[in-house]
């Protein structure tokens, strides 16, 4: 009986290959987008973890040179002999110009545990010391092949473009004998050792957190991607839900027959569920493969974006991780289960002798409508409450979910209302029929339209967020990078000479002075600023007291960045302690995007009093003729070109980075819209076959098939246009939640929201084009329906 049942079930798909294709393709697309985005995120995170683990950054405190980049090896020995447990690190770049490899040399005997492959135990210590290998991942090793004379050992866990070796080998390859770049502090230090200033006054201590915490910085980017992946999945599940619902409705007659022939209900349900499981697995496998392609295509752009934005090294190559396959298949099966539960329950509840008439495409039943409306209202109300009183990142995501699902559920009702309004106002008979027929079709298309709504809203929301970020950030760059030229000196003497040399040639010389500090109990940086025209004219403040610059310049007040203000619960007028005896009021709060830690700015004289040992080695120079100044610095002063940075260069670079971000966003936009378009196409195609009974009378009354086809096309465009109209406010609401709620919870700063009507218009056109494309073939098929088929409608008693 099982075999018979199976063959009966399968016969449906054989007769309706298009539905089978819809189901599998929908599942595959949903899984692909989800797993593709997850893969990109996972790959990037694995890269950060590798970087953190291999370099000990973020994990341990470090000692860095207060000036320059070198630490003499004698300083390391002096610290060790004074009882400071530090591990030396030398690093530099080797390999091909343009894409150099960061070579890191460590001493496995003094490095705190877990640093690099030696700590991990992939090679024992004597072997490491005697064979002197260089560890790198496969891609990096390939770059170094033939360039260095040390044996290369492939170690996949090492961060991309990084190679790790013994300190002896690194010093030799880098030509840095006797020199170190930083010292890593063991977490546990012996008692009774002298203060750092007494042993190595030239070194400053950097706390483990901050500065290098790449993961937290890049979270905002991954958040975008994750939001996209989730929305894409939701869109895909709508398609699957539609396909399954249709298949089940169409098989009601078969179910009735099978049961009448004696097949137990339980077995029938099991058979249908296993059938779906097989389809879900097939869709899942296809989806993960597709997702791999999506991820592999996107990853280089993502890697380039992250590298540009945050300096995070992400491998551009994708590794196929087993967890990925499993999660992809799981999400496909889970999605199918969610989509099919309702259908299976309705089969289970169906009376044995129920009508075999397909009902899914009947007009909405009042009760279902009420339930849907109630759910929608409840979800939107929850969203509102969360927006008003909720706190935390999870709440932010909960808010997003409630908003989107609530809006999607409300869509058919809103559209129905709009169409009703239109039909009431319609004068001509054809127009009245058109609106009425459109309304009648709405239930069949509603799932596809919900998918379109979500896709559009996601696009509007995410592109608003990215564009707002770009605008804010470029404005912020203009403010921060006011100086035309930035120079760095190698030593304190050179810095003094440089300042003296530049002063007469420039309108302002701005030293960049900073120290690590703990402000309001949080890791932060304290900056000393030479308050002049540059600051007064260029720096916009989020909040400021009167005469803010005068009081800061006089050393009577200070400025803090938004992160510090929000995290410490401080604002203009509050006091902040910046030294043992120094407490100053906050005179202003400035926006500081892309920086993970707090910052406070005081005047240069005050800074020098607080930290007399810190001397500026980097300067911003204001000038009207950047070219002439640059030439004077290189030719007359003898500063190496590498020590001079052009402001225009930095800006161009930052903007190029954003273009990358846009490439990724645009690619995902196109993908989600395609999925939504596909949903519309499939729904229309399915409907086309079932609608003949409704169209045949219109044809019989004299409407040409061509005209019917045109109206079909127009209907798709009208529905898409109405949906787009609904998607715009939803997308803006989504953007607001992302910018004003999720961002603040995740990163501590709130981005101002900008709207981009032109972008939305283009997106709307895309949506209409997608709908048009999706409707084209079904409309054409309708226009070419043989008259005999239309006539048959009247012949067949239905």
């Amino acid at each position, binding site marked *: 009986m099982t075999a018979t049942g199976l063959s009966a079930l399968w016969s449906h798909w054989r007769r309706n290959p298009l539905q089978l294709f819809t189901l599998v393709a929908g599942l595959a697309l949903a899984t692909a987008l989800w797993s593709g985005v997850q893969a990109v995120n996972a790959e990037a995170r694995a890269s950060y973890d590798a970087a953190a683990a291999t370099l000990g950054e973020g994990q341990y405190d470090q000692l860095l040179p207060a000036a320059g980049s070198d630490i003499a*090896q004698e300083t390391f*020995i002096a610290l*060790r*002999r*004074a*009882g400071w*447990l530090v591990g030396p690190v030398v690093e530099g770049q080797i390999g091909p110009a343009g894409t150099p490899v960061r070579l890191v040399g460590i*001493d496995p*005997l*003094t490095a705190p545990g877990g640093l690099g492959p030696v700590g991990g135990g992939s090679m*024992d*210590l*004597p072997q490491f*010391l*005697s064979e*002197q290998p260089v560890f790198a991942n496969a891609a990096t090793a390939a770059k170094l092949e033939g360039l260095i004379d040390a044996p290369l050992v492939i170690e996949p866990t090492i961060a991309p473009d990084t190679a790790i070796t*013994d*300190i*002896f080998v690194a*010093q030799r390859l880098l030509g840095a004998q006797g020199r170190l770049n930083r010292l890593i502090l063991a977490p*546990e*230090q*012996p*008692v*009774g*050792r002298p203060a750092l200033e007494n042993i190595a006054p030239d070194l400053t201590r950097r706390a483990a957190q901050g500065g290098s915490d790449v993961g937290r910085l890049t979270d905002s980017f991954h958040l975008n991607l994750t939001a996209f992946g989730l929305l894409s999945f939701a869109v895909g599940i709508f398609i699957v839900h539609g396909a399954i619902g249709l298949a089940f409705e169409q098989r009601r007659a078969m179910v009735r027959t099978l049961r009448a022939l004696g097949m137990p209900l339980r077995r029938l349900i099991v058979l249908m569920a296993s059938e779906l499981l097989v389809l879900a697995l097939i869709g899942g496998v296809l989806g993960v493969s597709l997702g791999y392609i999506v991820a592999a295509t996107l990853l280089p752009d993502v890697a380039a974006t992250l590298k540009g934005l945050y300096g995070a090294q992400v491998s551009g190559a994708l590794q196929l991780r087993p967890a990925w396959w499993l999660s992809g298949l799981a999400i496909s099966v889970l999605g199918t289960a969610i989509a099919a539960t309702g259908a299976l329950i309705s089969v289970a509840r169906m009376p044995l002798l129920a009508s075999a008439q397909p009902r899914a495409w009947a007009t909405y039943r009042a009760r279902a409508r009420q339930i849907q409306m109630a759910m929608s209202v409840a979800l939107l109300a929850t969203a509102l409450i969360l927006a008003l009183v909720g706190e935390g990142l999870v709440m932010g995501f909960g808010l997003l979910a409630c908003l989107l699902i609530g809006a999607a559920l409300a869509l058919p009702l809103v559209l129905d209302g709009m169409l009703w309004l239109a039909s009431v106002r319609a004068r001509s008979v054809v127009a009245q029929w058109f609106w009425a027929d459109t309304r009648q079709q709405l239930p069949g298309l509603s799932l596809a339209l919900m998918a379109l709504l979500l896709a559009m809203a996601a696009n509007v929301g995410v592109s608003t967020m990215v564009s707002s970020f770009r605008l804010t950030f470029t404005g912020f760059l203009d403010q921060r990078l006011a100086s035309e030229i930035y120079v760095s000196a190698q030593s304190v003497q050179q810095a003094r000479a440089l300042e003296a040399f530049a002063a007469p040639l420039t309108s302002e010389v701005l030293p960049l002075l900073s120290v690590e500090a703990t402000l309001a109990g949080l890791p932060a940086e304290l900056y000393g600023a030479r308050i002049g025209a540059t600051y007064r004219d260029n720096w916009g403040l989020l909040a400021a007291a009167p005469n803010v610059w005068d009081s800061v310049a006089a050393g009577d007040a200070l400025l803090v960045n938004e992160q510090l203000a929000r995290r410490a619960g401080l604002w203009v007028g509050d006091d902040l302690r910046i030294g043992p005896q120094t407490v100053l009021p906050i005179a202003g709060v400035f926006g500081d995007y892309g920086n993970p830690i707090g910052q406070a700015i005081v005047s240069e004289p005050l800074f020098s009093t607080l930290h007399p040992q810190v001397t500026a080695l980097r300067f911003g120079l204001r000038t009207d003729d950047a070219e002439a100044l640059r030439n004077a610095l290189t030719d007359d002063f003898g500063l190496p070109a590498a020590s001079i940075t052009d402001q225009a260069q930095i800006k161009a670079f930052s903007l190029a980075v954003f273009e990358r971000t846009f490439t990724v966003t645009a690619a995902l936009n196109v993908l989600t819209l395609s999925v939504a378009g596909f949903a519309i196409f499939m729904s229309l195609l399915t409907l086309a076959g079932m609608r003949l009974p409704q169209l045949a009378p219109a044809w019989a009354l004299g409407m040409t098939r061509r005209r019917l086809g045109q109206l079909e096309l127009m209907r798709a465009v009208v529905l898409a246009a109405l949906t787009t109209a609904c998607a715009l406010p939803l997308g803006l609401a989504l953007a607001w939640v992302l910018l004003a709620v999720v961002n603040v919870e995740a990163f501590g700063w709130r981005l101002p929201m900008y709207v981009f009507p032109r972008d939305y218009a283009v997106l709307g056109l895309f949506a209409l084009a997608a709908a048009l494309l999706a409707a084209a073939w079904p409309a054409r098929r309708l226009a070419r329906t043989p008259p005999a088929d239309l006539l048959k409608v009247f012949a067949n008693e239905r």
Partner: protein
Amino acid sequence: MSVKSLFLCGFLLTAAPFIAAAQGFGGLGTEAEGFAVPTPAPEFNFPADHGAHPDYRIEWWYLTANMTGPDGTPYGLQWTLFRSALSPFATAGWDSPQIWLGHAAVTTATEHYTAERFARDGIGQAGVTPAPFEAWIDDWHMRGPNFDTLNLRASGAQFAYDVDLRAQGPLIFHGDRGYSVKSEQGQASYYYSQPFFALDGTLSLPDGEIPVTGTAWLDREWSSQPLASDQTGWDWFSLSFDGGRKLMGFRLRQADGSYFTSGTWIAPDGQTTALPNGSFTAEPLETTQINERAVPTRWQVRVPEYDVDVTVSAMNPGAWMDLSVAYWEGPVTVSGSDSGIGYLEMTGYD
């Protein structure tokens, strides 16, 4: 001191967990290829021989001390510098194939504080110079104008000490004039001691600083293949009896369940008598469970030749050195035919 530390240095050579296999402890039984090998009837050249011997695979400067505070509270301390060679030479720079390892400990009746340091040779982070004598690793040192007058320092996360040592007697040479045989197959090391140090100084413990006085025993030993491949661990005793007599004895446990023993009887004036295999015996009386290991912490020690039949008890049975290589090392008290104090070391119980 004894074979003890051979095992520790050997561990560095392989960084592999101990397997009671044909290689003996942690590779200590490995062939001494390329390295110099101790030969009988050595003639030491002091002060040069107080310094390092890079052509031998392993070497140490090992000091233990029994001390008391102002109120009579007993304390123990350990200071050890191990040298382990990957190749039989030393150079200046990071690539010198010599590795240094330091262990330090302070033991009270209830607490046992330990610390460990690693260093490369050739860069000045650790080393030994014979005259003036200095053995150091990081901020730890044992140094003085000569080998008889030394200052000793070490520090850990919870403790530190700074003590002065003055020799009250001559150097003691174990085995045959300093050639100490470790197995019936003939494995041996060069081994001499200074067991007559008087000590005074300060311990810094979590509760504060404690002035201490006492006695200390310094061991010097170097070799290239000191253990037979079937020897799995050892129990080593350095005992000072009331009246000035001293005893060094060790028991090497072999894979077949038998023992190889050796020892040195030291008269108060420094006259020595080597105790051949079998004339020194040690039997466990009681064990203590430490991290699921049963470690003997009370022993019956006998040297019938000198009418010695004593019970040796750990002052703190929990004196487990839980470092990169784990072993037991702590102060002991002696009762029975003689009474006194000393130090006990046991390896191969993990």
